[in-house]
């Protein structure tokens, strides 16, 4: 029997990143009905900013990472404030296609400004390492798992306990009714975009630490993330969190089995397709808008 511990730990770390980004996606979708395809690209842009500052200019790490989060958040918030209202009355598909536009702009912009070489960025957390049975765990992996858990708990509490959270939950049900009740919907939406931007940037940095800085792979990280969000039916934070971890662990454990190792990256897509089919047959009201 193969010892799966190292693969499971690696998988949990990737899963943590999927969960983190997935939670951001779900919160934004619930508040604004926008499925944000560009969050991977936002994360990649932030990571490139951090790379330029830290590796090229020699600025202190913390400044670089804060700048990355700042840039990522600014892009996301800017899109939300500028185009969010224009897309507000459109259906969910058109809103999503709008963010596909943002994805292409960012992808092109990154290639023009930085070129398509693969880069590495050593996160300070990578220096930390713990021996756990047969596996070595580094700080970035721990950070990914811990952050996903903390963010999921904090977001759940935020949505349940604060006025803003209640407003967001209201908007998930009906934007019009919530607006009529006197909730400043634009401001609530802006908060959701802000939250999504921060999470996207952090995800980008963490993913850079785990697999390196490659523009295309960071940008299209969104596809497995969407798979996790879909498994949470684009509603449940905890199922999204769990789905992210399950996807990560399954994907990573399959490396150990030669016959299917080549096909391991198909895991999130198969799971998402199964979930969508289940939704289609059991929850037709949700999927036939």
């Amino acid at each position, binding site marked *: 029997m193969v010892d799966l511990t190292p693969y499971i730990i690696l998988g949990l770390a990737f899963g943590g990143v999927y969960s983190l980004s997935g939670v951001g996606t779900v919160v934004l979708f619930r508040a604004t009905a926008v499925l944000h395809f560009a969050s991977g690209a936002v994360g990649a842009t932030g990571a490139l900013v951090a790379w330029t500052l830290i590796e090229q200019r020699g600025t202190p790490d913390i400044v670089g990472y804060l700048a990355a989060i700042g840039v990522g958040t600014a892009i996301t918030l800017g899109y939300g404030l500028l185009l969010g209202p224009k897309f507000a009355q459109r259906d969910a598909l058109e809103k999503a296609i709008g963010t596909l*536009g*943002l994805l*292409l702009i960012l992808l*092109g912009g990154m290639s023009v400004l930085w070129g398509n070489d693969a880069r590495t960025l050593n996160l300070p957390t990578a220096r930390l390492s713990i021996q756990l049975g047969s596996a070595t765990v580094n700080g970035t992996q721990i950070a990914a798992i811990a952050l996903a858990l903390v963010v999921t708990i904090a977001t759940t509490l935020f949505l349940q306990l604060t006025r803003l959270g209640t407003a967001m939950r209201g908007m998930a049900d009906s934007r019009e009714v919530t607006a009529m009740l006197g909730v400043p919907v634009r401001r609530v939406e802006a908060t959701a975009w802000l939250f999504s931007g921060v999470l996207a940037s952090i995800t980008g940095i963490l993913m850079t630490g785990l697999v390196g800085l490659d523009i295309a792979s960071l940008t299209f990280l969104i596809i497995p993330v*969407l798979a996790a969000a879909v498994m949470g039916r684009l509603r449940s934070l905890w199922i999204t969190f769990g789905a992210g971890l399950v996807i990560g662990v399954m994907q990573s454990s399959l490396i150990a089995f030669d016959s299917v190792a080549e096909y391991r990256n198909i895991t999130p897509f198969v799971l998402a397709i199964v979930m969508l*089919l289940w939704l289609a047959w059991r929850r*037709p009201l949700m999927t036939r808008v």
Partner: protein
Amino acid sequence: MTLHRVPQPDVTARPSWHGITRRHVVTGVLGAAVLLSPPAWTDDYWLQTLTATAIYAAVALSVSLLLGRVGMVSLCQFALLAVGTWIALRIGYATGMPFLVVLVSAGVLTGLLGILLGLPALRLNGLYLALITLMAAAGVTVVLAATQFPNGGSGVLGFSATAVGSTSRLARPGYASSDSAYYAVVVVIVALLFLLVGAHVVSKPGRAWAAIRQSESTAVAAGVSVVLYKLWAFALAAFITGVAGGLLAASGGGVTTYQFPTENNILLLAAVLMGGVYGMWGSIVAAVFVKVVPAVLQLWGISSDILLIAFGIGVIQTMLLSPRGVSAQIAGDLTRLAGRLKRSNKV
């Protein structure tokens, strides 16, 4: 998807083949002459680019058929193109049947897969259909990276990593072994595909699709079989894509799996939306965006990454301001220009 501010076509109007006039015939002959002329005046670089453009026009047509005619978004047509290419290569290497037979078989088999893919579309709409097709496309990319394209190896997959110098390339028929002859073959076949779609649009399926796009429940009430016509649309779109895949398999210097990244599915949708989904010209414009424009930029020494930015802005602009796309915009501008010229002549 119902795009805003689009004048919906009149479902009750029944276009038909009887309306073909002499003008149509003349336009057709002139069009054919223009399309078939490039081998006389271009070099190999442009000939290959134009061949690719014609093939992509067919793929774009399949996307716009689903989106513009039936209102279903498919983010996996580009992945289906890869599947069509794979099937054509597999059949080609295994049997050595005539080129056209291989093309049609690839189209039919891909069409059957299209029906399978269309099944979820009976229950999923809008965003959810987009998501499931995107997931399927991503899955195809992963599988393809593992299986590779057949290159004459043995076994089910027909790929041999050790085969020396064997690229995955479908054998061209004897009458089209040169690039210029092959270009002509591709243009004729793609034109036939456009005619096939045109024939559907002006007859019963086209009217059924228009009814489904307007409102599914009304279509059902009017006695349109939503199941049949949705699956029909998916099958037709996949057939076109499969044939295009076969054409691609025999073009240029062979195909590799790197040519089919998942993101190209997104890019294709963007190009089709910009070109315009409500008419067949849009598909040609989309193919020009994806193939000709980058080739021009390359000649000028400009990175085609700029194009991605333009695509992104174009998609957002299309969604917000001109849902009928560039082709309709140009047509409208030309009409206005003609009107203005007429008026200025009178003065």
